[in-house]
């Protein structure tokens, strides 16, 4: 076929130009304008740390921070996110230094299969930014939109509490009951 005709048939022909700021870095790219932020992050920017479990806004695994707020990237059109700060799990650590939430999740075993973990880490980060001293109930409320099938959420609560304490400057360690039982 004539190359010009072929080009008009290609998916690329339906793309538009976009400018995104992800984890503090600017990205200029051409993307299909019907794509969600989730799809642009995963497919166009290869940031596959952001997961998907339903692509219908039901599970919370695709949560990212937009303007510091947790949002379900599967329900947000990428178009609407241009020029706004977007944070994904890949941007949580400060260079080689892990975020206290990441440290705590690793330490207490809050990530089992790890699939819901990025969405939960970012949602918890937003919670702690707003409320440095959350109660267990505050954490439950903040994470009520994030499904996890492995942990029963218990280790996740404990990790968030541990990270919160450390971020407040308290020398916290996991409880013995958390790691060894009662």
């Amino acid at each position, binding site marked *: 076929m004539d190359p010009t005709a072929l080009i008009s*048939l290609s*998916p690329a022909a339906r793309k538009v130009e976009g400018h995104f700021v992800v984890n503090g870095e600017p990205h200029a790219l051409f993307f*299909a304008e019907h794509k969600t932020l989730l799809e642009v992050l*995963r497919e166009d920017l*290869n*940031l*596959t*740390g*952001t*997961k*998907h*479990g*339903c*692509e*219908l806004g*039901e*599970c919370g*695994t695709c949560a990212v921070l937009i303007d510091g707020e947790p949002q379900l990237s599967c329900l947000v059109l990428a178009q609407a996110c241009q020029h706004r700060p977007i944070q*994904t*799990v*890949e941007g*949580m650590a400060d260079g080689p230094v*892990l975020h206290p939430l*990441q440290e705590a*999740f*690793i*330490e*207490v*075993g809050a*990530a*089992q*299969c*790890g*699939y*819901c*973990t*990025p969405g939960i*880490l970012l949602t918890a980060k937003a919670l702690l930014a707003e409320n440095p001293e959350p109660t267990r109930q505050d*954490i*439950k*409320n903040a*994470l*009520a*939109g*994030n*499904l*996890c*099938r*492995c*942990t*029963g*959420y*218990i*280790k996740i609560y404990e990790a968030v509490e541990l990270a919160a304490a450390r971020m407040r400057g308290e020398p916290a360690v*996991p409880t013995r009951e*958390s*790691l*060894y*039982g*009662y």
Partner: protein
Amino acid sequence: MATREAGKRGRGEAQKRAVVGTARPKVDAYAKCTGQTLFADDLVLPRMLWARLLRSPHPHARIVRIDTAKARALPGVLSVITGKDLPTPFGILPVSQDEEALCTEIVRFIGDPVAGIAAVDEDTATAAMDLIEVEYEPLRAIRSVEDAAENPTPQIHGYADSGNFHKLVHLEFGDLDAGFRKAELVREDLCFYEGNTHLPMEQHAAVAHATSDGKLTLWSSTQTPHYVHRALSKVLGMAPSRIRVIATPNGGGFGGKSDPFNHEMVVAKLSQVTGRPVKICLTREEVFYCHRGRHQALMKIRTGVTRDGAITAMDFESYLDGGAYGSYGVASTYYTGALQTVTYDVPVYRFRGARAFTNKPPCGPKRGHGTPQPRFAVETQLDKIAEQLNIDPAEIRLRHLVKANTVTANYLKIGSMGLGPCIEKVVEGSRWRERFRKLPYGRGLGLACSSYITGAGLPIYWNDMPHSGVQLKCDRGGGVTVFCGSTDIGQGSDSILAYIVAEVLGIEPVDIRVVTADTDLTPVDLGSYSSRVTLMTGQAAIQAAERVRVTMSGPVAAKLDVPVDRIVFAGGRVFDANDPERGMSFAEAVVTAESKVGTIGSVGSYTPPRSPGRYRGAGVGPSAAYSYSACVAEVEVDPETGIVRVPTIWIGHDIGQCINPALVMGQVEGSVYMGLGEALMEEMAYRENRNVVHKWPSLLEYKSPTTHEMCDVITYLIEEPDANGPFGGKEAGQGPLLPVMPAVANAIYDAVGVRIDEVPMSPPKVLKAIQAKAAGKDPRFGPKSVPTVPWPEAVYVPTPAEGGDGKAKAR
């Protein structure tokens, strides 16, 4: 050999262990918390195509015609294949080779695939689905077990035992009539357990890459790469030596990724046809159609007891709705009858099980595989018996526990048995004795117990080879690489390998690299199912590491000029036990040994001990070790709405020996969570008008516990080391789920005085029972009858107490 060696490491050595028994991070936790873990759908290869499957909108129909011409003509579509391109059937069990990659003649449930498309992107593949024309001739659908019993035709599969009953089992252990004659109370109860599904957060995904040298690589979110390898070879007609299956880290499995799947075959074929890599990622709706979840089970249990609650005989019947294919169903059926005997002493026992084929998504193994349903029946009935006999539910259980190191009526060999301490712990923690039957109306406590296998005693296909293999390679720099076919599905199997090798070689887990789940690179491990991995790969790893120690000890002893039996591996060093200063680093020891004997590596393998049962059906139930769990649930029942809230669950689990207690805690808490979901809300329900259309194939409408529904969990880990376990360890991933549902049911009775003999115990059922009680009717919600089944003659096996030898006998 490994078994004996592990047995020697009894409790006495516990203090000396550097790694085993201490909480520490999982080896893969860093990648999982930074977004670096690559799950199957995260993989991208150059020139990769996208696949979609066109699925049947009919529950049961003959395919009259498929026309793919318009789909093929769509720009961007590279290939469309149908059943005739992959006509060889497959299935996980050798006796149930009844699945097709794409249906050739008959579709058997809504969601059965009929065509596969490969296109340049997912949107194009999806658009092509609408362009495939399929003409169906609908057949009568079989909608339930009752429907299957009444309608032997049209038969869903011709190989069924009888009509639409896939499998009929009848086993009798000992003189049942004599057992019931000894009883002072005989109770008969009916229970119903709605099926439910795994709901892993990760949708199944696979990437296939067929290369022009005639080889094929498949990456897939599977729990059983070895079985996928075998099935791919069969369906593609290719030598297994040219197929490489790599299981990517699973974003949750719970049994739902244990079968070889049609989408794996289809992407492999599409890659061969197009010469390009092909990926598929199922939609969440499709994950519901893959299913293989908990069988719906109707059960009848008749138990005779003496006045002090000792069981004299048990007669158990299960009626399973298996869905459209065999899957693990034959094993599932046997499992609904296998483990009734391993918690409390049951001297004589009969089991009859029937699995129906119906036109619904196929059922299979979900966490607890076939045993949560009967456990619900046993534990709720025992609660009723205890009340009738005026014995405390904890006491009736404690009095009649199965004893350690005995053989049950159905020839299961019990090793260590820590249920007693588990019960004591949850009774104490929940203040059971002060609070049971004493809480105000609407609040209650319930208790239940359970047991589970630590790995199935037999492989899925008959063979004499090990169930698990491990290979070790020691680097001159002191690093050790562990190669093993096991698959990490989040349970921590990669970490377990590192901890165990580190323990035996006296090095740090961080100095160990683990390579797993790759049929080209790693020795076979059968897969992540039946709670087998820690025990079997652990024993294989111990053997491999001990062999490395033997290989290295000689040259090191010679160099240090000390007797070889004084060489110790600990603290990253290899040294003289009598003079620890005399030694060298582990890395120097590798160099010393390699200089002397060449490349340092080893292999280890493990096969579970043979069980004493020799009758047909004895293959399901035996295990190297049994874990035990006891649970107390506290509930708050709103009598106006029937809504049940569970504020706290106390759970005691006999783990044998923790390899990493933090991981055990996670498995126990996760099991309680999943059990709570099953108890209160989860159901694989079908629309009542036809009973074949899935009611809610979505994460929103399929109710699962969020942070708002999840209870507090108070966990007690009991360590009764088992001689067969690695360092004495037993399973944790499935057993603690089992007692949750009956504990909740028993607690509801304590709270409002009604029996909910069904799972899930959803608000409408609870409300109906409360209303029935108020109206002076039977205060119960549950099934009232069982279907008529053409049971086969019993396989009669005298029990060990009757002098039986494990073989069936004519009566």
